[in-house]
């Protein structure tokens, strides 16, 4: 690293004209070529605003009061032209689906260079370099719409790198990737830094981001810097409720603070003799004349099941679940819902038994008020008026949205929107709840709050929202820790096949199997497996602290071994 910083942020503050509160305040740091800075913090901490100040979207596209300065190679960003900034600061947005503007890979990668008006020979030369650098030659002729999530992100990254930026700004680049793709992306980021690119990695999944071996960490809360420094030790300023930290760090902090752990309801073990609610019998499925995407699936969903469906993108998880709710009917075999073949039931009829909460609330929210939104399902199912009214009131009370009945759902915060979607399914009085990626699109603080709302004990009998209202729950997820913490049964899907079905303790101990299904073991899983003889079942990180003996706890090294 040279001594000349490529980026200097000096006493930077910003307030959006549209909002009363200041978004970021007195931020200062600098970045050397080849240095990687991890910026972490919960939603609303100011990470995105900081990024917009660095890449010039503030003040060009977002207006407000800005003070302090952002210097790239000694020049103030707000005074540089769009063309100049674009060549110095490359930004990879959170969702590559929205970053990609061209129908073809080649067009996408060339886009920025075309906009700079470079000669064609130069564009081709630079594209060849970046195709080789990121090993993308096999994607050269592809349409961008057909790429997988990981491929899309590599293409989006190539479209940024081809402009040869001195600073690379990565805004939650892991959010839309499955763990294996996220791991590959992290390796690429590290090697780019090693080659001299200065990188700002914005990520609330600190545990994953640490694998990129960032040189420094900037931790933000409420628009302010709380910590700026090394990451080799666990800084006390970090709030383990706000960002996702490695399990050993959480345990260490809980032991230091001597606080009681959160009262999350531990799932009761699944009972293989319990009442069958849904049965898959030799189910295979293909879209039209296309290749088979599900192969001979056999399983029963029983009362009391809390199932996590794990597997990489494109493995067939959603296709499997859509069979349970009748959106898809098997090409071979049968799906029995309460003993009746799904082919003999309409989706509306099945909806009385199974409620499905889609990943993004904006895909389903439409009504002018929360009350009408929640009443939509029961009205479609022709419940009588009194029942609808009662169901709506009860459901809103369960998800803690009382008082918001008259609000427009689309005007609520993301977390409230998610809760509205849960209420919408609760009001249909379905017996089984299906959640597709319940934590997607939320930061760590919000998603743990959301999962706690679903799984925390609510009544005197220690039942949670899910166990009190549904006979079984099934959630599709990429987040292995979610499966470790909240499930009592794991379905592992790979290439359209059910490769494992059992308790978390039995399925998740086989690392070879997990890795063959592109599921990456986490520090929480490792720690849980290590402690399983003492605990008997998997626990959240905070609940593991009491299981460490004094001697064990004194040795940070031993705890860190789980990393």
């Amino acid at each position, binding site marked *: 690293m040279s001594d000349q910083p490529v980026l200097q942020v000096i006493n930077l503050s910003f307030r959006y004209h549209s909002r009363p509160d200041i978004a970021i305040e007195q931020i200062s740091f600098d970045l050397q070529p080849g240095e990687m800075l991890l910026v972490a913090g919960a939603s609303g901490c100011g990470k995105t605003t900081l990024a917009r100040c660095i890449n*010039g979207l503030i003040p060009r596209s977002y207006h407000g009061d800005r003070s302090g300065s952002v210097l790239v190679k000694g020049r103030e960003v707000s005074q540089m032209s769009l063309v100049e900034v*674009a060549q110095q600061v490359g*930004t990879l947005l959170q969702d590559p689906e929205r970053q990609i503007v061209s129908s073809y890979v080649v067009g996408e990668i060339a886009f920025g260079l075309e906009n*700079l008006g470079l000669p064609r020979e130069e564009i081709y030369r630079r594209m060849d370099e970046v195709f080789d650098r990121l090993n993308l030659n096999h994607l050269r002729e592809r349409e961008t719409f057909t790429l997988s999530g990981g491929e899309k992100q590599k293409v989006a990254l190539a479209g940024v790198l081809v402009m040869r930026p001195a600073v690379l700004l990565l805004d939650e680049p892991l959010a839309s990737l499955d763990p294996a793709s996220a791991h590959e992306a992290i390796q690429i980021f590290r090697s780019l830094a090693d080659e001299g690119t200065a990188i700002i990695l914005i990520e609330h999944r600190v545990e994953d981001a640490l694998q990129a071996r960032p040189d420094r960490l900037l931790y933000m809360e409420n628009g302010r810097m709380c910590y700026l420094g090394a990451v080799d030790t666990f800084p006390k300023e970090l709030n383990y409720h706000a960002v996702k930290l490695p399990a050993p760090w959480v345990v260490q902090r809980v032991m230091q603070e001597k606080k009681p752990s959160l009262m999350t309801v531990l799932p009761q073990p699944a009972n293989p003799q319990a009442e069958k609610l849904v049965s898959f019998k030799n189910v295979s499925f293909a879209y039209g004349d296309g290749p088979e995407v599900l192969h001979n699936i056999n399983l029963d969903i029983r009362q009391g099941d809390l199932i996590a469906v794990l597997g990489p993108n494109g493995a067939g998880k959603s296709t499997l679940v859509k069979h349970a709710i009748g959106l898809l009917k098997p090409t071979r075999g049968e799906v029995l819902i309460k003993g009746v073949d799904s082919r003999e039931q309409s989706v509306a009829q099945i909806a009385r038994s199974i409620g499905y909460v*889609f990943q993004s609330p*904006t895909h389903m929210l439409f009504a002018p008020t929360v009350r009408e939104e929640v009443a939509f399902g029961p009205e479609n199912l022709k419940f009588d008026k009194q029942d609808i009214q009662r169901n709506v009131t009860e459901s809103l009370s369960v998800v803690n949205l009382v008082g918001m009945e008259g609000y427009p759902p689309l005007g609520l915060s993301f977390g409230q929107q998610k809760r509205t979607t849960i209420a919408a399914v609760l009001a249909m009085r379905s017996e089984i709840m299906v959640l597709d990626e319940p934590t997607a699109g939320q930061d760590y603080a919000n998603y743990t709050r959301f999962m706690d709302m679903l799984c925390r004990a609510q009544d005197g009998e220690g039942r949670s929202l899910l166990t009190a209202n549904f006979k079984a729950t099934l959630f599709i997820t990429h987040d292995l820790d979610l499966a470790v913490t909240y499930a009592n049964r794991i379905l592992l899907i790979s290439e359209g096949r059910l490769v494992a079905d059992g308790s978390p303790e039995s399925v998740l101990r086989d690392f070879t199997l997990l890795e063959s299904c592109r599921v990456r073991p986490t520090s929480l899983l490792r720690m849980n497996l290590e402690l399983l003889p003492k605990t008997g079942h998997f626990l959240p990180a905070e609940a593991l602290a009491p299981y460490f003996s004094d001697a064990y706890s004194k040795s940070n090294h031993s705890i860190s071994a789980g990393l």
Partner: protein
Amino acid sequence: MLVTWKYRPRDTFIQSLDPRARLTFMACVILAITATDVWDARLLLPVFAISMVLYFMARIEWRDVRRAWIFILVFILFIIGLNALLGGRGGPLSVLQDDSSVLYALSIPIPLTPWRINLTVTVVRSFFALVQMMRMITMAALAIPIPYTIDPSIYGVTFRRMGASDKLSFTMDLAFRFVPTLGRDFMITMDAQRARGYELESVRGGLIQRLRRLAPLLVPVTMQAIVNGEEVIDAMDLRAFGARRRTWLRELHLRQRDYWFMALGVIILVIMMTARILGYGEFWVPGFWYRLVGT
């Protein structure tokens, strides 16, 4: 999937042409058979023949275009065909003021009013209907193959090279990029609402009522598109879109065959214009038609 592009590479003369040449040719032919007011079947027939030959040279599979053709033929037959046949509307004066033999006459009273609808098919109007349909099919045969035979990735550069601005031209490319995304969002929303007991089949009633019943689909898809749109704008700004005159990586080259093809279009247009100036091209009914329809 809801939206798929039917374009695929084919080793045909049509697809070897520069899209600018094809669009220019199409514009000339459409102008030649509409704007010049030529109604003489002897002049229109060769153009119709050229258009059909080009259509078959494109070698598009029938199952791909079946729906488009059925739609167009039904449209032409019922709307334009009947209109021309019964009233001669849309045609030259000689058809409107036609006093040829009546083949068929029908007078239908309008209930509760003293008026009647008089439908009179004459020899002249029957042939006029035929000519009118021929003109429409000539244009349809040129237009229908476009989405099947022009690579979606070159619409933007085609329009740029034809003089449109960078921004307008790239809008074409963006549309092709995001229509499949819109289609996918629509399918997800459809599934999400069906899982809440919503049935599209139950969307009945008047326009307002239908729109209300469609809101569960239309609102989420629109919201999603708006949210996406904002990020796409950021993504484009961050890569300097619109900051200066852009290079279009894809190059288009007019070759000799493209010039010949455009020349053919221009010749057709010039012939029609000249014919009109010299007083030819009026509506004409061949003698055999009188014998054929039995008068």
